[in-house]
């Protein structure tokens, strides 16, 4: 298939969901079935296109980048700024081709799942319209070959996540969560925006390729390496917001207020993946310092959220924190230089995390139906303490869920094992090269914690005893439209789809397609080169694999001994470590901290502004009002006295002179003749003088 056709297919992939969105938002309610088939159909065609593009790209043009550029605006030479020309375009390299397929795949699964999950929703067609818009925005980020379009897609993802999280906006918590997600994201976006502008100010282009070439040829922003690091860190700020990294991770758990399929979409393929994808895209401009910062932020995020996930009782909250933790992993991987591993984990994570969310959606759906049927509005359908023993009633959901859990815990034969193993090997290699020992320690610790809290979730949800036997009787498996996406995603968690060697991803197609790009930054500030890193990675591979298996195995054993065999009482531990438990339950107090410091600070600030408004601004306004009043009073008096006086005077003078002159009008012809003669005589004497 030709070069042009492939890029055209990619653009069709991008535009089809937008077309669906446009049709649905205008005609959605009038279409049969409210148009769900339209949006689902267009995303399915997108998926087919994306898969074709991916396969063709990876087989026919593995080393080429397919691009399509067009000049958006050309102002020629703008005085004071210089030439101003913005070229936009789309490009498909291996990274984008794989990412497009992943996004389309997860999005399609979510669309099908939503048909079942949302079938009696009040805003059914709007929901599908926004799903399509979300997919479109994410694909735009993926396919953009310049920071400008990337930023546009970035913001569109922000707004569509806002719309979807706040889908049930009648609930205060949902609308609050939507606003929180949007505002927190904006904070990161500001950094990203500044980062883009630093690069634009130097290179006068938004094109990533041109910027890389510019840096490679020795041009640095403002001629300094510090600015380059700053630009990298600021771009990373955008990723911190979108990918929910510490300290901006607080929006993601709240985003669970949206419908569950939306959570799956946000957590797996769109939105949070955007940040990691951005880092992969801009990887070559990152200096060693920027990468170290990125690695540490990722490690801290992974650790904090893994610990929080242990103490949560809401099934979706646990999954939300696990997402943050896994994102921390990916960011950490990119930070340490394990580029392939980071992106690989993004792909595998997209599959199993989408599956986990859809699986939890299936459980919630089933439980909700029963609770609704029984008229029970008190019991929370999302609380894992109300679950248990669902394995017998929901076998498909259970087995697929178990598959995802094994994958996320990094058990052998799963895709998660391959990618996680690579990341951990990368951290070890990083430690070997630079001596940052904190990173691998956190990496292995989090691997153990992940296995622990995920199996805690599985055990509490599906195994053990259900509290209410009567309720359990009525629970039954979800319909096909919900379970088929689960089965498809579970199948994709097997290692064979990514690598034929179950113990190493190095021989898999992802490792071949995704090669770490060479850094373009000056050698003095660059991180270790790809070859050195590759060599260190090679040595670290076997120890990392063994240690990660050990950590995950310990975590699973601990989970079983606490929650299944009840060897150790969880309550006793919680009571013993009361402080720690409360601390974790409160999510390390981030929400309180932000509420008090940021929100409270904003309140204080607005109070000050209000005072300023009330006294100074209002004072000025009132003062100017009084001055105007006084001036108008004075000018009114002036008008009444002076101006009217003049007018009246004129009238009076006219009247008076008229009064005098009328005396001459005697009505006697003879008098007039005398006047005429006298007048003639006066004229005679007057003119004789000259």
């Amino acid at each position, binding site marked *: 298939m030709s070069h042009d056709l492939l890029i055209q297919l990619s653009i069709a992939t991008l535009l089809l969901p937008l077309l669906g969105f446009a049709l649905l938002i205008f005609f959605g309610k009038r279409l049969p079935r409210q148009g769900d088939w339209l949006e689902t159909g267009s995303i399915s065609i997108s998926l087919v296109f994306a898969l074709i593009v991916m396969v063709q790209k990876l087989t026919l043009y593995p080393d080429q980048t397919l691009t399509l550029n067009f000049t958006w605006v050309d102002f020629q030479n703008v005085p004071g700024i210089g030439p101003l020309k913005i070229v936009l375009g789309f490009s498909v390299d291996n990274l984008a081709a794989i990412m497009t397929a992943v996004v389309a795949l997860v999005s399609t699964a979510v669309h099908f799942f939503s048909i079942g999950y949302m079938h009696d929703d009040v805003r059914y067609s709007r929901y599908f319209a926004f799903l399509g818009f979300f997919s479109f925005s994410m694909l735009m980020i993926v396919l953009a070959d310049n920071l400008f379009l990337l930023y546009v897609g970035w913001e569109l993802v922000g707004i569509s996540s806002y719309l979807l999280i706040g889908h049930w906006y009648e609930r205060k918590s949902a609308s609050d969560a939507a606003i929180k997600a949007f505002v927190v994201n904006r904070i990161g976006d500001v950094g990203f925006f500044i980062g883009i502008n630093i690069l634009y100010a130097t290179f006068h282009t938004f094109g990533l390729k041109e910027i890389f070439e510019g840096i490679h040829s020795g041009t640095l922003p403002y001629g300094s390496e510090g600015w380059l690091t700053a630009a990298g860190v600021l771009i990373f700020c955008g990723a911190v917001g979108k990918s929910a990294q510490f300290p901006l991770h607080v929006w993601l758990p709240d985003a669970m207020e949206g419908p569950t399929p939306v959570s799956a979409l946000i957590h797996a393929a769109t939105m949070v993946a955007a940040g990691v994808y951005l880092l992969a895209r801009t990887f070559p401009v990152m200096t060693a310092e920027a990468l170290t910062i990125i690695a540490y932020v990722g490690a801290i995020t992974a650790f904090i959220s893994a610990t929080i996930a242990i103490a949560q009782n809401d099934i979706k909250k646990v999954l939300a924190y696990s997402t943050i933790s896994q994102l921390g992993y990916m960011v950490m991987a990119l930070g340490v230089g394990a580029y392939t591993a980071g992106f690989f984990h993004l792909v595998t994570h997209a599959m199993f995390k989408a599956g986990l969310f859809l699986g939890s959606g299936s459980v919630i759906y089933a439980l909700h139906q029963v609770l609704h049927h029984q008229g029970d509005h008190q019991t929370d359908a999302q609380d894992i303490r109300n679950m248990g023993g669902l394995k017998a009633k929901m076998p498909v959901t259970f087995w697929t869920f178990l598959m995802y859990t094994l994958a996320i815990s990094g058990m052998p034969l799963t895709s998660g094992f391959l990618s996680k193993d690579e990341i951990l090997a990368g951290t070890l290699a990083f430690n070997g090269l630079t001596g940052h020992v904190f990173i691998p320690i956190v990496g292995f610790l989090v691997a153990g914690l992940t296995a622990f809290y995920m199996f805690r979730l599985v055990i509490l949800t599906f195994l053990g005893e259900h509290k209410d036997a009567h309720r359990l009787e009525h629970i039954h498996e979800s319909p096909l439209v919900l379970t088929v996406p689960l089965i498809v995603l579970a199948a994709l968690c097997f290692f064979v789809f990514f690598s034929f060697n179950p113990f190493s991803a190095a021989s898999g197609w992802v490792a071949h397609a995704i090669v770490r790009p060479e850094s373009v930054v000056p050698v003095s500030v660059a991180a270790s080169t790809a070859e050195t890193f590759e060599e260190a990675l090679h040595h670290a591979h076997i120890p990392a694999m063994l240690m990660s298996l050990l950590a995950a195995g310990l975590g699973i054993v601990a989970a079983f001994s606490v929650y299944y065999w009840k060897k150790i009482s969880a309550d006793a531990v919680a009571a013993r470590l009361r402080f720690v438990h409360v601390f974790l339950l409160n999510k390390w107090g981030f929400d309180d901290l932000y509420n008090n410091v940021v929100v409270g600070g904003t309140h204080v600030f607005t109070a000050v502004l209000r005072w300023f408004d009330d006294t100074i601004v209002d004072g000025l306004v009132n003062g100017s009002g009084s001055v105007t009043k006084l001036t108008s009073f004075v000018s009114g008096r002036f008008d009444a006295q002076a101006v009217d006086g003049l007018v009246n005077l004129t009238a009076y003078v006219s009247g008076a002179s008229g009064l005098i002159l009328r005396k001459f009008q005697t*009505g*006697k012809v*003879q008098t007039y*003749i*005398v006047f005429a*003669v006298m007048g003639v005589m006066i004229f005679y004497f007057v003119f004789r003088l000259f």
Partner: protein
Amino acid sequence: MDVFLKGFFSWLPNVQLVHFLIVSAILFSLGMYGIVTRKNAILVLMGLELVLNAANINFIAFSRYGGLNLDGQVAAIFVIILAAAEAAIALAIVLNIYHRFQTVNIDEVSNLKE
């Protein structure tokens, strides 16, 4: 008498334009005086005739001494005709006034004043 006549006739060739003008001015002034002072409308019209004739004397004098030649005399004839016409109309008006007010005193005929 002879001397007087002889003196007069001998002076006659010395009559200049100015003398005619003096006579004309006297006549004009008398006419104007009549117009202004008389109460009777008929007398006022008579004053008017004097003024017109003063003008005639001027025309004739200028035709003789001032180079107007026949033009002056033609103008004088026009004035005479005009005076006749004017007298006819004016007397008709006076008659009408008398019919209306039973008087020809122009001081009492001041209804147009207000």
